[in-house]
């Protein structure tokens, strides 16, 4: 028998058929099913119309009000209410909203429910963020997840894998964001279609768990079905920290077959900025130097981590947001928000002129909390820069890491953080 990829091994362990080879169609039982206030209500309606009366396992369902939360209008309030009521009716304890929750994918990583070898089915394309934890996060739409709620399983085609071999260590101002922008720049926005991106090699150790989340989060922007990192001491430590049972990382067999291999030397990367209208539009920061910005947005499901907030604060400490520029900072979860408060980061950012928000998906998807007017330009640590993504169809979004985004807020234009004028020595 040929060797197996990480993806094949994890799917096989969850498949009703007991096996999973690339190209096969199998029926998979997830460990966790995840829905939000946008995808959830459509799924709950589908669940009812299916004639289902009870979800497969209330303890393994996580419902998060994060997209239009806190509710900006009456329709959104109704959607959150419907989500809360579904949780109450079916005894689902894992219901989260502003005050105890955060953005679903970051929040899920704090619940101790996803670790090595796990599978999450989420009604959100960025469910692939779970790949950071040596787990498979697989995105679906609402009706598929209505079926998953009812049956505890879904059919899927086992993807081939693309191996991304990481070596070296990232240099100054190079973050997880730059790793994935480089991958997407190279293979294009459908370069990983029908495939799983598997990240491995000695360079994995040089990426923090937050950096791995930033990478995994945007696998779908390369068209990937899902993605997964090799596990190691860091992923095991994070699992233990959040109370998940200790499990052994799932690694690929040496003779596993890949559709393609991509080699990335982290030490050779420079900070990238993805030009609109595609996440595949990555170019070196210098190529866009002088691009004027109206708004800078630091947040979202993979780049509102404590790591991102520390990077932003590092640039903004002792500096000010440029006149005429708005800086919106959105910690991804309540836990991260409180940690940032305890570390003094929120005050430091606010003192520099940032508007610091409660956790929400907010303006990342053009929902609320800072959407763009016609003709406006944003630099954002988010994952999509499609036409009109953050507001008016005639606004534009450049994607970058938190250091680069913070530097743009200070300069009022895209600039390498290294080029900001040096601060005077503290008195």
């Amino acid at each position, binding site marked *: 028998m040929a060797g197996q990829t990480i993806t094949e091994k994890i799917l096989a362990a969850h498949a009703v058929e007991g096996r999973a080879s690339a190209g096969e169609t199998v029926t998979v039982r997830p460990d966790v099913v995840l829905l939000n206030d946008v995808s959830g209500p459509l799924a709950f309606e589908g669940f009812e119309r299916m004639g289902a009366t009870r979800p497969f396992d209330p303890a393994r369902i996580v419902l998060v009000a994060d997209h239009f939360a806190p509710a900006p*209008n009456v329709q959104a309030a109704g959607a959150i209410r419907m989500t809360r009521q579904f949780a109450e009716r079916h005894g689902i304890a894992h219901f989260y909203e502003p005050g105890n929750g955060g953005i679903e994918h970051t929040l899920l990583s704090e619940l101790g429910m996803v670790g090595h070898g796990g599978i999450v089915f989420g009604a959100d394309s960025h469910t692939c963020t779970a790949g950071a934890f040596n787990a498979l996060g697989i995105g679906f739409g609402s009706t598929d997840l209505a079926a998953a709620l009812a049956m505890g399983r879904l059919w899927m085609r086992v993807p081939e894998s693309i191996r991304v071999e990481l070596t070296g260590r990232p240099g100054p101002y190079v973050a997880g964001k730059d790793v994935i922008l480089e991958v997407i720049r190279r293979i294009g926005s459908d370069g990983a279609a029908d495939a799983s991106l598997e990240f491995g090699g000695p360079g994995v150790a040089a990426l923090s768990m937050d950096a791995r989340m930033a990478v995994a989060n945007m696998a779908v922007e390369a068209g990937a079905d899902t993605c997964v990192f090799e596990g190691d001491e860091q992923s095991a430590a994070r699992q233990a920290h959040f109370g998940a049972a200790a499990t052994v990382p799932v690694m690929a067999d040496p003779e596993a077959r890949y559709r393609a291999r991509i080699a990335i030397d982290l030490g050779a990367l420079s900070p990238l900025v993805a030009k609109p209208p595609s996440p595949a539009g990555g170019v070196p920061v210098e190529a866009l130097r002088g691009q004027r910005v109206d708004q800078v947005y630091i947040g979202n499901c993979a780049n509102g981590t404590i790591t991102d907030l520390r990077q932003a604060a590092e640039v903004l400490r002792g500096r000010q947001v440029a006149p005429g520029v708005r800086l919106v900072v959105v910690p991804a979860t309540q836990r991260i928000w409180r940690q940032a408060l305890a570390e003094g980061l929120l005050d430091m950012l606010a003192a520099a002129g940032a508007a610091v928000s409660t956790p929400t998906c907010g303006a990342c998807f053009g929902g609320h909390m800072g959407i763009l007017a016609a003709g406006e330009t944003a630099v954002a640590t988010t994952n999509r820069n499609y036409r009109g993504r953050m507001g008016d169809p005639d606004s534009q979004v450049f994607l970058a890491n938190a250091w680069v985004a913070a530097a743009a807020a200070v300069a009022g234009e895209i600039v390498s953080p290294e080029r900001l004028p040096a601060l005077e020595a503290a008195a």
Partner: protein
Amino acid sequence: MSAPMTGRVHRFGDEVNTDVILPGRYLALRRPEDLRAHCMEGLDPGFVGRVQPGDILAVGRNFGCGSSREHAVVALRAAGIGAIVAVSAARIFYRNAVNLGLPVLICPEAALALREGEPAEIDLASATVRQGGAEWRAEPLGEEVRAILAAGGLVQRVRAALAA
């Protein structure tokens, strides 16, 4: 999915993502008639006014990429779209469309050749696309996809399974 369907063709290019099909600011809406009004608003605000029930989309590469929002499919269906012929389609969008009974045929030759505004015919049973005298054979639909479409959608398929 027995009788062939006929509709006029509306063409779009590559990388038409779900954000332009149904912009995020409308995601608190759920009713088909409410979503219909905003269908393709991010790309072509006049689209809804031109579509007739049963019309066909001919689209480029990676159609429906991006957000998993099923609202995009609800909006296309409510606007009247009866089938999609694509060079390629993003996985989540493809599943969402099939789950709501909107067939997506993968056929690069047809997707690129179909003429705007003219009627075309789709025969799902044989995965065939026709326009004028031309005929193209699309990728065959998978077994599960055929079963879902035959049931009229995933809700009906699961409903039957739960009742059995």
